[in-house]
């Protein structure tokens, strides 16, 4: 049943492509229906199963003489990410309600991207995973290049090429492990049990990890992210930061760590405290956390702040993965979900609600616009989203970050210290952006604002309100009741850590 999320999305994409151009409302309706169907399916399947073990959805031969099978399966980690995709998909459609230019093509590419993402999360054959991963690249390019804003063609091409290079690296790892395991199968389970030689894992692990890490925004391969996020239209930024970056992190976890666990073993020598690939990537993750936060602190473009904050938050995820203990990796997966929702929310507010009305993203310009009074919905939604992003208890980010902190303490205490710095700077840049954009000190008090002299902003539309409400509710719900997700993530992580993909 869960596999239908993929098929429905692609069917929706095809349907959108042939819809008449003169009826954008129809295109929107179809897109919303398809996205909603996907979300409902995900929720229903989530509720219907305890997700204590892996559930196989489909397993048919595809290219028999190469041992490639069309295998779709899901465990706790997959279902959480599928839920995230469903949420982000519906929210993205809602926030794209106002797109008038070539609406049906927009939603065709959008749904194709969603289908590809669902496919990656549900694939249990490495080759199939790779195929879906590649399928997701092209719609991204067109979404940004056609409907984006600042430097969109450059941003789109950069994103496409970076993704392609990343996937090429993964392909090499795939080919290598396929060849070395005897060429019988590309199933994740089979490859996981293949006992690949250690020296192979030693170079395959970093290669595949970096390949996926590029998409996850790992420092220093993150440079596509701020440009891409700023260039992309709102729905695409939401998907990029919310879901696509998680594709990379998921690949790091499922493929790199699941198939090549020996690649993280100590090298036997150490250099300034770095003695294995695990140390290397942990250091890069920590750098990403701190660097992303510090750079976000000095940005003058609102969207860049959020873009760099995404790099910082993904650093948390990658650090959590590298702790290699139950609590850290669980925290990383929860952070994937949490950040997906919150980043989507932040981009929606900044891009869709603020930028569409004020036509500027420059913080200094926004400062003079009395937005706290004139756009109360956006201001307060950003306050709540901002504190959620900071990691306030009660929202999903707190438990996730706490788990990552605890996990990293158990692994290597100094990682925790550096991470703490990132959290503190995180509070700072969020607060700065909030102050400058909505509640600037330079302005008079709301009751002393000039009452006339500016054009009225459009009211908040129902799709915007629904989208914001939905995402906030999700973050709050998981924040107050994290066990609903932790209960399914923990068994999956336990299995993965115990013996790779089995």
């Amino acid at each position: 049943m869960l596999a239908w999320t993929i098929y429905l999305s692609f069917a929706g994409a095809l349907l959108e492509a042939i819809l008449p151009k003169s009826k954008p409302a129809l295109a929107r309706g179809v897109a919303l229906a398809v996205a909603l169907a996907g979300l409902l399916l995900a929720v229903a399947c989530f509720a219907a199963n305890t997700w204590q073990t892996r559930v196989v959805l489909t397993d048919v031969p595809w290219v028999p003489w190469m041992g490639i099978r069309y295998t779709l399966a899901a465990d706790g980690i997959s279902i959480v990410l599928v839920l995230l995709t469903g949420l982000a998909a519906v929210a993205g459609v809602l926030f794209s309600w106002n797109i008038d230019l070539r609406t049906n093509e927009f939603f065709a590419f959008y749904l194709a991207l969603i289908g590809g993402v669902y496919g990656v999360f549900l694939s249990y054959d490495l080759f199939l995973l790779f195929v879906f991963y590649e399928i997701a690249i092209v719609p991204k390019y067109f979404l940004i290049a056609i409907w984006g804003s600042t430097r969109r063609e450059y941003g789109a091409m950069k994103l496409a090429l970076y993704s392609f290079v990343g996937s090429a690296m993964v392909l090499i790892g795939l080919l290598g492990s396929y060849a070395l395991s005897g060429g019988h199968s590309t199933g994740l389970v089979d490859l996981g049990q293949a006992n690949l030689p250690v020296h192979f894992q030693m170079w395959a692990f970093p290669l595949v990890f970096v390949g996926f890490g590029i998409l996850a925004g790992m420092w220093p391969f993150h440079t596509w992210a701020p440009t891409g996020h700023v260039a992309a239209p709102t729905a695409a930024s939401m998907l990029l930061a919310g879901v696509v970056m998680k594709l990379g992190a998921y690949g790091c976890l499922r493929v790199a760590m699941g198939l090549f666990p020996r690649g993280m073993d100590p090298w036997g020598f150490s250099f300034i405290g770095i003695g294995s690939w695990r140390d290397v990537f942990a250091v890069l993750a920590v750098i990403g956390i701190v660097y992303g936060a510090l750079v976000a602190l000095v940005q003058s473009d609102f969207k860049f702040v959020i873009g760099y904050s995404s790099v910082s938050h993904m650093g948390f995820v990658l650090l959590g993965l590298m702790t290699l203990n139950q609590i850290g990796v669980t925290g990383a997966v929860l952070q994937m979900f949490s950040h997906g929702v919150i980043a989507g929310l932040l981009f929606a507010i900044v891009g869709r609600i603020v930028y569409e009305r004020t036509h500027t993203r420059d913080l200094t310009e926004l400062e003079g616009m009395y937005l706290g009074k004139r756009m109360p919905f956006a201001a307060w939604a950003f306050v709540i989203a901002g504190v959620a992003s900071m990691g306030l208890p009660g929202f999903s980010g707190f438990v996730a970050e706490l788990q990552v902190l605890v996990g990293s303490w158990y692994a290597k205490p100094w990682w925790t210290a550096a991470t703490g710095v990132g959290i503190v700077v995180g509070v700072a840049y969020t607060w700065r952006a909030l102050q400058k954009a909505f509640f600037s000190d330079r302005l008079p008090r709301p009751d002393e604002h000039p009452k006339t002299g500016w054009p009225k902003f459009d009211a908040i539309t129902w799709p915007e309100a629904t989208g914001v409400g939905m995402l906030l509710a999700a973050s709050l719900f998981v924040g107050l009741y994290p066990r609903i997700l932790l209960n399914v993530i923990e068994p999956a992580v336990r299995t993965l850590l115990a013996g790779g993909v089995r």
Partner: protein
Amino acid sequence: MNYGDLFRVTLPETVLEIAALLVLVIDLGLLRKAALKTRAAVAVLLGEVGCGVALLTLQFQAQGGLTYPGSRDVVLAAGGSAAVAQTGLLVLTVLSLFLLIDSTFTRHVGEFVAVTLMAAAGGMLIASAQDLLVIFVGLELLSLGLYILTAFAKQSGKSAEGAMKYYLFGGMSAAFLLFGFSYLYGITGSTNLHRVMLGLYSANAAQAAPLEYLALVMIAAGLGFKVAAVPFHLWAPDAYEGAPAPGAAFIASVSKVASFALLISIGTAAWHVFDGMQGRVTISAEFHAQSGPVYLGFRSAWGELLMVMALVSMVVGNLAALAQTNVRRLLAYSAIAHAGYILLGLAFFSYGPRSGQAILYYVLTYGLTTIGAFGAVAVVERASGNADMDAFLGLSRRNPLLAAVLLVLFLSLAGIPPLVGFWAKFNLFAAVLAVYPAGFGLGLVILALAMSAVSLYYYLQVLKRAYVMPAVDTTALKANPVTLMVLVLIAAGVVALGCFPALLQGWMQSFYAGM
């Protein structure tokens, strides 16, 4: 051997020749006064029928092929990779003939079709030939036909220029090839491929090593020209740009299939002779086993030559394509790049049919995609007068179906799943890595993947103009419905074969079953 056997084995070629003559006769005789469109339609129809019949007759070729009189050596192979190549070749000829409909570059449609068919016959011959002289004959037949096809657009200066370059270059390369063949004959005393290989492996050949290397280089030059590998590629951009669309499609697809089938034959013959397990030269029971020291020098030399050509083709082809503003030239350089990938597969050729299968799969699907690409480009060309990138501006608005076809085909060329181009690349690289998983093999595969990333960039440039950038001219772009239907069919095929690779691969497998 008797002439009856010869006739039976070369039945498809014969059918093609007869069809060619028939087209000429009917066009010149019966349809003298008819309109161009009618004549074109009839000629194409006859050509298709001819190809269709040839396809049918492929079934009836004798097993084991045609042998020399009084010997068991095979002159013309049948079954296995030869049959696959020939079938593919005929299908591609059918498709490229469709592009002739609604074209305005010539009034001599009958001649065009006839020459195409004759060139196809030459290609068929090459695909199955196992004798150096037969190879040469087939090569000449194919090449001369291609030169003429390139020159067919008499109104266009570019056509003449391209054909001239092609002809001069081709003539020179043919000379090199013949020269190399003659050396091989001199060293080994036979013109049969397998005998030649056997001879090259023997201790005698070791003494003639310098001559051997010279011969190999000559042959590499000659065949490299045919497949447009660097540094023998200089004719390609001009020829692809100047030739009329059906001709360009034919060059890009059929001649490649034939040439690579030939290279596969050479590779298979080389392997076929050497049994790694027993460490000595054995072929099949018909040949005598030879014991004694075995000279392998030529095999690694050949492999190295191909490797260098592959490397340079991949890099030069992709990098040069980045700078192009004319889509035809872009396709030419991309053809050079693809030739590089395939040469990689040939440089690391496996014992057993795996490499051969992967290469044929690649070149057949590439041919299919290329015909579609040239067809789509031709439609745009006809409407706007040239094939510059800017002619594609706003294509998604002007003719969404054509733009969608272009999207599918170009992405397949870039190697994006789930299109067939991706499978072809994956298959090929897997085969290369199966032979040589480390060192050079791995390094070249990595380079190939990197170059694929580069290729994505320039394919996206065209697609960007079609989809992203605003149109200069927003009038609808009319395309002939038959042409459009064929293009859609090709695109659908690319998608279907990509989603269900078992279809084509399974079909190919069936040919190898008997081998």
